């Protein structure tokens, strides 16, 4: 067993502090907000919960409840996080109640989803929560039975004293257990003793989902609730001027009110997630959705161009000025400017050796440019939120990824202390990064405040797709220098984007090449961007993994063997510092997928593409097999190998990998958002092409590297390498290299 220190009280948990780079650092903190009268202070209809800590509640008649702290957006944390608690608590997973916790910064930290970090960061705190509760139950039994603590064992929610033959359910000891001191340290289970972790469990909401029960924010119905929608400017570069026919439209049936809403106040220092593309929108409030939609269509609003401006932004502790240029932008202009900037000086992010000397002395030089357009997230559940704001309090409920940050922004906007704001998290109908930017929560709250009623704000699909916060548009130029022996002696990447740079300077092949240079640049744009499944990696992997395929081909090497050669170098004699990845773990996934796909035998007979990438602390490698059929792409099979450490819920993790692969094939093949004079060229699914059933790979095989390493990300790592595997397989099938996304635009 492993002993860990638990310097926390009942109510206190590991505090996570944000790093400036967006990563998370765990440190043990102690909050002392616990008061004994809080124990039964629960809104739960079932009274008598003994709260052993924020995660574990047990009634005297042995109902055991585990709180799931983080929002559930389809990544499975509402199942997998409680599995970890249940493992250490030693209960039967099928017999417990699992409940989504509200935002509660006293009980929980890092109560958000993003960066595939929920399990990675939650691993120790969740185990401790279960182990601490179990420890206190054992203490209570030992005291009650007057036997030594060490002699009290547990099994599936029952406490035993074998010598005397005494036993009791957790429920019977729960009331006594909450009176026990919180242990200074607890023993965690040996990995080999896991009974729940590593055994597939069904999604805890499965039955509710398949029977259509209300789980999503958009399903919210409350007494006296009104429906609200917004109208935002039709083009990036425009702002609200006036409502032309408000009084006429407000007389339409079912319409209650029409008014402009300003999301963030002037002078408010926006933080990382406070992106609101259009800071002033027009709210339409009415009785029913259809009536509000009709009013929305009838409204005539005047918009006007805005001048360029700068605004202060606090990017996770790093203060910077954000430039927002005026003007109506075109995608052709973005492409031209990005191309032009590739030939201009950029910011050096990493430099090893002497790259220019390496290129001068090279036997062969390869240079390629890769491009990708903006992408809309297109969560299937359109943005929405419920709000009921009075002078006394603000009640919010709905789907969002970063409630703690949004609560702070709302507190500032309403001038209301955090204690008076209650945010409940509903299941998210997809997140993919989009729901980290919850300007719609603030809109809902302001609308409710104005109409003095509970309000559900719903975006139409068009509102959702045209309101920005996209995946950025990117470009990257790669150069590789090979010597006469086809050794990679120089590598240079220059990457940029509008408005965000995609570069990860310390990723592979950094560390494996003597002469390495990574630089980047950004181009200002008034088109807003935000995290999009595997941010930046989704482009860098595509570009880099396509490029490496071409470099391997030029060197006359097998693409997997070529990468393994580089990883060997990075392991044995790493170049430079701060290499993100562990070469050995990286090589393992390459070898695993090579074996499972029978790469060495099939690569000549089939059109196979290979790609691998490290991100979110996990490693993934894919082999993709496709063929062309009447100019359309038929993906027969994808083999996927992943190292994400200990796999909590294997079948759910497999589902994530399968979904990530399908999703990435769709974005790589068809995904694009372009602009004409600031207006998005796509606004619904008839003109934004999403992958459909018939276009998905016919078969996907997922293999996990088995190890005892603490779990790392699983929601994103399978996604980025798909683009490269697809591009490289397309090359085999068509003889053409695919440098620009979406690939389908360049097939014929």
């Amino acid at each position, binding site marked *: 067993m492993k002993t860990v220190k638990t310097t926390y009280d009942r109510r206190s948990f590991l505090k996570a502090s944000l790093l400036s780079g967006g990563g998370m650092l765990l440190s043990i903190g102690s909050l002392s907000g616990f008061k004994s009268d809080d124990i039964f202070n629960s809104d739960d209809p079932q009274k008598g919960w003994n709260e052993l800590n924020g995660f574990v509640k047990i009634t005297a008649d042995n109902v055991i409840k585990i709180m799931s702290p983080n929002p559930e957006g*389809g*990544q499975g944390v509402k199942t997998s996080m409680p599995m970890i608690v249940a493992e250490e608590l030693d209960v039967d997973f099928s017999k417990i109640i699992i409940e989504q916790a509200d935002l509660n910064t006293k009980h929980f930290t890092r109560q958000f989803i993003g960066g595939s970090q929920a399990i990675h960061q939650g691993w120790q705190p969740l185990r401790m929560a279960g182990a601490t509760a179990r420890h206190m139950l054992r203490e209570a039994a030992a005291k009650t039975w007057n036997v030594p603590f060490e002699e009290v064992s547990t099994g599936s929610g029952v406490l035993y004293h074998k010598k005397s033959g005494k036993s009791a359910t957790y429920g019977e000891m729960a009331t006594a257990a909450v009176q026990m001191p919180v242990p200074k340290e607890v023993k965690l289970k040996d990995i080999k003793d896991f009974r729940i972790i590593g055994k597939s469990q069904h999604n805890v909401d499965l039955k509710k989902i398949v*029977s259509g029960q209300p789980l999503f924010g958009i399903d919210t119905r409350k007494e006296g609730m009104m429906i609200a929608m917004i109208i935002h400017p039709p083009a990036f570069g425009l702002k609200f001027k006036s409502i032309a026919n408000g009084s006429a439209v407000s007389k339409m049936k079912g319409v209650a009110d029409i008014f402009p809403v300003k999301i963030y106040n002037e002078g408010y220092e926006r933080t990382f997630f406070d992106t609101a593309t259009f800071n002033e929108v027009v709210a339409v409030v009415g009785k029913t959705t259809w009536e509000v939609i009709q009013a929305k269509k009838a409204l005539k609003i005047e918009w006007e161009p805005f001048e360029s401006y700068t605004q202060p932004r606090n990017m996770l502790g790093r203060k910077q000025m954000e430039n927002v240029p005026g003007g109506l932008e075109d995608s052709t202009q973005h492409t031209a400017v990005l191309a032009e900037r590739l030939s201009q000086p950029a910011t050096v992010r990493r430099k090893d050796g002497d790259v220019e000397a390496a290129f001068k002395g090279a036997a062969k030089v390869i240079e390629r440019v890769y491009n990708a357009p903006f992408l809309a997230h297109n969560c299937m559940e359109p943005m929405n939120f419920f709000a009921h704001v009075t002078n006394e309090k603000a009640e919010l409920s709905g789907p969002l990824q970063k409630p703690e940050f949004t609560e702070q922004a709302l507190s500032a906007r309403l001038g209301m202390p955090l204690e008076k704001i209650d945010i409940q998290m509903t299941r998210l*109908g997809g997140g993919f990064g989009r729901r980290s930017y919850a300007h719609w929560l603030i809109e809902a709250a302001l609308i409710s405040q104005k109409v003095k009623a509970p309000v559900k704000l719903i975006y139409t699909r068009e509102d959702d797709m045209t309101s920005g916060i996209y995946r950025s548009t990117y470009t990257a130029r790669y150069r590789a220098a090979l010597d006469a022996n086809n050794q990679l002696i120089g590598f240079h990447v220059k990457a940029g984007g509008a408005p965000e740079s995609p570069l990860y300077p310390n990723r592979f092949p950094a560390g494996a090449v003597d002469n390495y240079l990574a630089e980047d640049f950004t181009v200002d744009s008034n088109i807003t961007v935000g995290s999009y499944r595997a941010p930046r990696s989704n482009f860098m992997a595509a570009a880099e993994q396509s490029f490496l395929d071409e470099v391997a081909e030029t060197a006359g090497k097998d693409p997997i063997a070529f990468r393994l050669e580089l990883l060997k170098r990075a392991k044995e004699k790493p170049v430079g510092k701060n290499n993100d990845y562990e070469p050995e773990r990286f090589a393992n996934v390459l070898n695993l997928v090579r074996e499972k796909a029978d790469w060495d035998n099939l690569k000549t007979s089939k059109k196979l593409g290979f790609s691998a990438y490290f991100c979110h602390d996990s490693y993934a490698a894919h082999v993709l097999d496709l063929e062309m059929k009447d100019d359309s792409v038929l993906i027969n099979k994808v083999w996927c190998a992943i190292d994400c450490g200990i796999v909590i819920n294997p079948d759910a993790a497999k589902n994530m990998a*399968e979904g990530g692969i399908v999703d990435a094939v769709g974005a790589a093949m068809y995904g694009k958002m372009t602009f004409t004079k600031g207006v998005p060229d796509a606004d*619904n699914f008839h003109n934004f092409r999403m992958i459909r059933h018939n276009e998905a*790979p016919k078969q996907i095989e997922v293999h996990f590297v088995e190890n005892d390493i603490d779990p790392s990300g699983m929601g994103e790592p399978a996604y980025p390498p798909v683009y490269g595997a697809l591009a490289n397989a397309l090359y085999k099938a068509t003889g053409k290299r695919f440098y620009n996304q979406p690939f389908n635009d360049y097939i014929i």
Partner: protein
Amino acid sequence: MAKFNLKINQKNLSVDVDPSTPVLWVLRDHIGLTGTKFGCGMAQCGACTIHLDGNAVRSCVLPVSAIGKQAITTIEGLSANGTHPVQKAWIEHDVPQCGYCQAGQIMSASSLLKSNPKPTDEEIDAAMSGNICRCGTYLRIREAIKTAASK
């Protein structure tokens, strides 16, 4: 506004709404059945799929005035307690991720199996391609449909 007598999930219900109101919003706002989902409002994503006399239709573009005497079935009425073979297959294969599109997927799949009890892969693709899943659960959906077809 006009009064419409509707048969929804075996129950007779009457609503007083504008005749142009899509069945989707009648269900969600007026009846309180929120299992049928709003996705696009233009019959492009399938999230709003219901059965009209057993056939899959997109309720977001179907005005309530077009229903007449046809019986509406929503995900809530597909079976008692989620025991339709398609729902059971969905559970067996643990299909959903976020789950938002799944009611529509299940309604399309159950309609397919009613008219074609043993569909081929191509027939499944053809019947299901109007239903988008951003999470990418298409392979599990196909397997679940095959499982349901085998029972």
